[in-house]
């Protein structure tokens, strides 16, 4: 029993990451009708906003320490962050420690700007082009973004820890009356879960309760009619693209402490996020979120050792297997709308 609760918890956490990435993707892919292979790259850029922030905060100047030597026997050059000079070591350490949360503030404008540039500079010209062209151009863009990041930061993962206040795990087991250590969960992952829920809720509220959101939803349903009403739907779609980029970026920033970011993390998530979006159903935001959670929970169950012993390799294929079953039983995924990307 405790094992199941543990894996449901795990699945919710995994699922919240999937849902968040899929949400951004479906805003572009399911509603603007653009197959955006660069969405993974946006997620990765978000994580590198966090990396950059912690690099900026630890920007250092060198002080030669004559008492110590480096590996070649020369006097050691100790790096002292500028921030120590400005705020003193104690405050400086606290600021550096909180680099990831601080970078959220930076990530929102940065990612929205990147989204705007992408949409105005490139994607805009591809709304009416065949999906094949969209794939080629966004895939090319994704490679270019990746390679630039690799050029700047190298190929290895870069540790980007969460603030030390969030190190360690919360013991749900004790709270629920199980043995200690039966159901533990790291604090930062709990933060990630609630953060995702918050972002998802905010996006839904924005689309549901604002006039802007109403127009966008109308535009998704019938772009031409909305255009005929004299509403500048193009401008709103640009803003939507910016929001989608920001959602992807925030998902990336918060993910950085969970897995050290590297330049190809976007590609790792790309295929998975397409599967999530399509399983959820094209053009459906709730579908994407539901599919994210569903696949996250099932993936967690499949990784239980009792399940693997029974069905070797099931943990390798569970997501794809579930995707196939859902798409065969429900023609348009969980909540897909008719006629979106069916040709």
């Amino acid at each position, binding site marked *: 029993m*405790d*094992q199941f609760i*543990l*894996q449901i*918890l*795990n*699945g919710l*956490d*995994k699922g919240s*990451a999937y849902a968040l990435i899929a949400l951004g993707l479906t805003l572009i892919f399911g509603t603007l009708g653009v197959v955006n292979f660069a969405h993974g790259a946006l997620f990765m850029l978000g994580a590198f906003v966090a990396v950059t922030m912690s690099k900026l905060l630890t920007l250092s100047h060198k002080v030669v320490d004559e008492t*110590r030597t*480096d*590996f*070649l026997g020369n006097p*050691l050059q100790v790096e002292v962050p500028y921030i120590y000079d400005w705020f003193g070591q104690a405050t400086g350490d606290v600021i550096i420690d909180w680099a990831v949360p601080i970078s959220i503030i930076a990530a929102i404008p940065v990612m929205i700007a990147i989204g705007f540039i992408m949409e105005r500079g490139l994607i805009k010209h591809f709304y009416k082009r065949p999906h094949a062209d969209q794939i080629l151009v966004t895939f090319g863009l994704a490679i270019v973004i990746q390679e630039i990041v*690799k050029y700047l930061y*190298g*190929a*290895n*993962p*870069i*540790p980007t*820890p969460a603030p030390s206040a969030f*190190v*360690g*795990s919360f013991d749900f*087991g004790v709270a629920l009356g199980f*043995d200690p*250590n*039966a159901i*533990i*969960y*790291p604090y*930062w*992952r709990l933060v990630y879960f609630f953060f995702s829920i918050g972002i998802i809720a905010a996006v839904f509220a924005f689309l549901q309760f604002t006039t802007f959101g109403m127009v966008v939803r109308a535009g998704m349903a019938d772009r031409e009619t909305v255009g005929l009403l004299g509403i500048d739907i193009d401008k709103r779609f640009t803003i939507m693209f910016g929001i989608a980029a920001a959602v992807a970026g925030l998902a990336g920033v918060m993910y950085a*402490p*969970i*897995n*050290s970011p*590297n330049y*190809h*993390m976007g590609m*790792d*998530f790309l295929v998975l996020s397409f599967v999530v979006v399509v399983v959820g159903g094209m053009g459906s935001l709730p579908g994407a979120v539901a599919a994210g959670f569903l696949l996250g929970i099932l*993936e*967690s169950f499949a*990784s*239980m*050792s009792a399940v*693997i012993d029974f069905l*070797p*390799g099931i*943990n*390798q294929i569970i997501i794809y297997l579930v995707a196939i079953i859902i798409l065969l039983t429900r023609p348009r995924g969980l909540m897909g709308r008719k006629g979106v990307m069916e040709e």
Partner: protein
Amino acid sequence: MSNSKFSRRGVLKTGMVASAGLALPQYLRADAHAGFTNAPGDSEVILGFNVPQTGPYADEGADELRAYELAVEHLNGGGDGGMLGTFSSKALDGTGILGREVKYVTGDTQTKSDAARASARSMIEKDGAIMITGGSSSGVAVAVQALCQEAGVIFMAGLTHSNDTTGKDKRANGFRHFFNSYMSGAALAPVLAANYGTDRKAYHLTADYNWGYTTEEAVKSSTEAMGWETVNAVKTPLTQTDFSSYIAPVLNSGADVLVLNHYGGNMVNSLTNAVQFGLREAQANGKNFEIVVPLYSRLMARGAGANVAGIFGSTNWHWSLQDAGSQAFTRSFGTKYGFPPSQAAHTTYVQTLLYADAVTRAGSFNPCAVAEALEDFEFDGLGNGPTLYRGADHQCFKDVLVVKGKENPENEFDLLEIVEVTPVEQVTYAPDHPQFAGGALGTCNPGA
């Protein structure tokens, strides 16, 4: 139709370019009288450095490439000579190999067997490389080794740790200096027993592919021989990035040690996840919970940051070793590039030197002569103490380092400290050891 099989442009470039532009078909039989693939001309010899330049191991590949460039420089008499001065064999004198200047070509393995073989074939067919070396994974090493056997050139393996490379997939033309899963297990187990006691229950998370299998088996059998019990061993997909669902159940499984049979990105992520779950501070069975990483790579450990502190593992070589060979190499590498070399850089540098030395001692580039010179060759001064290149399986036998993540690293290169240098006797095994069963070296193939 001629059966030249693999072309040998090296000669053509240097020796035969002068042939006048007569439009007469020329039947190339140069290899026939040399008797082997890509016999070099009189002035230069071409080596093929096949390393990952794209993909997750690109940084490791870049470090290998730096070491290769350094080795070529030293072989050609440039720089401070590095390990040439400390190497027990004095056949190399800084005038290239057998009087020929060493040139090299580079390629990208992408850490995919197909791409690695394509790149190696282009080096052999297009550039006339006489030896191929490099790689950062066992899948690639085994694939390229088989290709070199077929083509008739020598393969000097780079970073490959799976037992299979010199076990069931060994080849007569392939040689490995790097250590292997068995040696990791044999070196680690006594240290683990000494530090954590003999009454331990281990939980393995294993990468679900060949290298993971051999490592799990090696660590399992050597720790069980010390009295440990294996509670569970769970396979994790190669493409997994978030290991939370595998790590969450560990603490309540009755185990008090977690063994992460992961490498590269998998290792960074699983270790980071395990530390997030608080496993390092946890208690189980009345003992401190411990984590073990059988194969450490300093480059990759950097990705895990402070999470490696206090965690045991094994490594082939580390720049902080105090012997003359290691010091000489670290000094020349550090002077040229500004930071200390990784174990991948060390093994590839040493492999290049060993190859050059074997050619010189054999007095021939013929792969069969080179193989004979390498087989059962005993040497010292290359950083791991007295070493034997065993003829029966083409595996080097040398001391293995057991290391621990440093608690307070001084800089980003100073992540590991050496806990013990396990003597070679302790990690030596019989060529027909069950973990290496199956497969045969075959006979050396000179190609042509």
